């Protein structure tokens, strides 16, 4: 099946490994992601202000581009892109007035027909393929890997666009189980990573990375698996910074679910582009004989 794919800027720049491993996975599963012919930034942060419609233009344009290509669904890897696209999609469904204002402002575009569904790639795996079926495709179970699934915020909040329960999400844990890994559950799975504080308050973010990763370690995890490129940067890169703040602390590796999925499906480790990570994820994989 061909799926219309919305990439977003981050997977084209600092999170290329998420896209590369995701593409390898979708191909192995017998589907095809087709990048949208024209797309722009997702809007990054969904504005929650009532009268700030300007920040809904970017996501709305992408939804219109999808309609231009005659598609009713777009799939994305990035949590933040998925979030902004879904929130704007919801807003124009719910408020006819906002919808008119946005359409009138854009004037040169075709009006959005509200026909597009935005799907996170994790939703595609869970709802369209199914974890049970996915489990059958696993060629190399992640046996002996103790991993804390980490959800962050943007795939779970607000509730209206969440892909899982905001307080007790299980989607990543269910995926990990399907891949044969041991799930380490802690309340820190839904703690905020520090998000954009990483620009101005590096120490604050490093400390958050430490708290989350240390909680995982205390519960017995060797690594963390996540989906969001923002969380990945903060836990991986700022987590490494935390080694300078906390004496004797050692940051554990951070994996995208697409990377572990690729390895479990028996795909070559090259597809994971681990060289782009700050904390080297390879030694643990070798130790557990995954690669």
């Amino acid at each position, binding site marked *: 099946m061909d799926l219309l794919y919305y990439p977003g*800027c981050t997977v084209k720049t600092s999170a290329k490994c998420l896209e590369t491993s995701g593409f390898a996975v979708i191909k192995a599963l017998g589907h095809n992601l087709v990048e949208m012919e024209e797309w722009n*930034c997702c809007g990054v942060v969904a504005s929650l202000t009532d009268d700030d419609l*300007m920040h809904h233009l970017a996501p709305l344009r992408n939804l219109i581009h999808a309609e231009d290509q005659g598609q009713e669904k777009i799939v994305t890897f990035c949590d933040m892109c998925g979030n902004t696209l879904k929130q704007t999609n919801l807003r124009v469904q719910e408020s006819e007035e906002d919808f008119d204002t946005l359409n009138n402002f854009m004037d040169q575009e075709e009006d959005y027909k509200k026909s597009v569904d935005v799907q996170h790639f994790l939703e595609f795996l869970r709802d369209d393929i199914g974890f049970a079926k996915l489990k059958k495709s696993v060629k190399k179970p992640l046996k002996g890997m103790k991993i804390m699934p980490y959800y962050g915020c943007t795939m779970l909040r607000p509730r209206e666009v969440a892909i899982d329960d905001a307080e007790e999400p299980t989607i990543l844990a269910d995926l990990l189980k399907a891949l044969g890994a041991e799930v380490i559950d802690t309340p820190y799975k839904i703690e905020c990573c520090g998000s954009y504080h990483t620009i101005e308050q590096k120490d604050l973010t490093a400390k958050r990375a430490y708290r989350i990763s240390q909680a995982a370690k205390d519960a017995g995890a060797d690594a963390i698996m996540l989906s969001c490129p923002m969380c990945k940067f903060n836990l991986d890169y700022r987590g490494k910074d935390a080694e300078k703040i906390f004496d004797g602390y050692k940051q554990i590796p951070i994996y995208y679910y697409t990377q572990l999925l690729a390895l479990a499906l028996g795909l070559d480790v090259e597809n994971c582009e681990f060289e782009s990570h700050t904390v080297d994820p390879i030694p643990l994989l070798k130790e557990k004989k995954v690669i």
Partner: protein
Amino acid sequence: MSTEANNEAARQANAADTPEVSIVNIFVMGKRYQVPAGLTIMAAIEYAGYQLIRACGCRAGFCGACSTVYRKDDEQKLHFALACQTTVEDGMYLVQIPFVPASKAKYMIEDLKAEENTILSMYPEIARCVSCNTCTKSCPQDIKVMMYIQNALRGDIAKAAELSFDCIQCGMCAMRCPADIKHYHVGQLARRLRGKYIDTQSQDLKKRVAEVEGGQYDKEIEELVGMSEEQLRGLYNKREIEAKKKKKEGE
């Protein structure tokens, strides 16, 4: 105003000075003038008696100096044009934009690399783009301005260079942007990066530059510098055109 410009205005006016040509009303900075229909905005402003000291350059649609903003009598929206390329219409309220203040990143192209974040690091404000598309609507060259900024943002330098290729640096995009992006400088950086690092280098060019630097044409240049205008014109008219020569050979 140069003699040439004077002549051009007079010529266009004379050409229009036939019984069937109608007169249109235009407004230059709020003052009404009656000018013959069919003149370019630039010629009409000169016809009205103004001397263009700024906001006027090549008069051929290439230099981007004559960016013009206008609104028609009964219209809600602003229009943007090059004064030398657009003919006057009845009820145009015109203003010339002589200069666009736009800060420009300082860089040595040799010191840069064509990487995903190169443009973003020089012009971080491109991340403020909200995709409102006002830049695209203000471009007299009909360039997809917002899309090339978006391509720059996602590190696709080659595409940003391609989409911005027709830019003549008039600066209207930067004047209109709510995010204070300096689009035309961004496009220029993209094209420079692509030319230097992404596209295949032309071997002919490399050879020719070496010849020039080796002094092979110094004597010829000196001779040309010493020639009169008449001699130069004669030489120019007799020049060998490669494409024509090849066609002949082909025949």
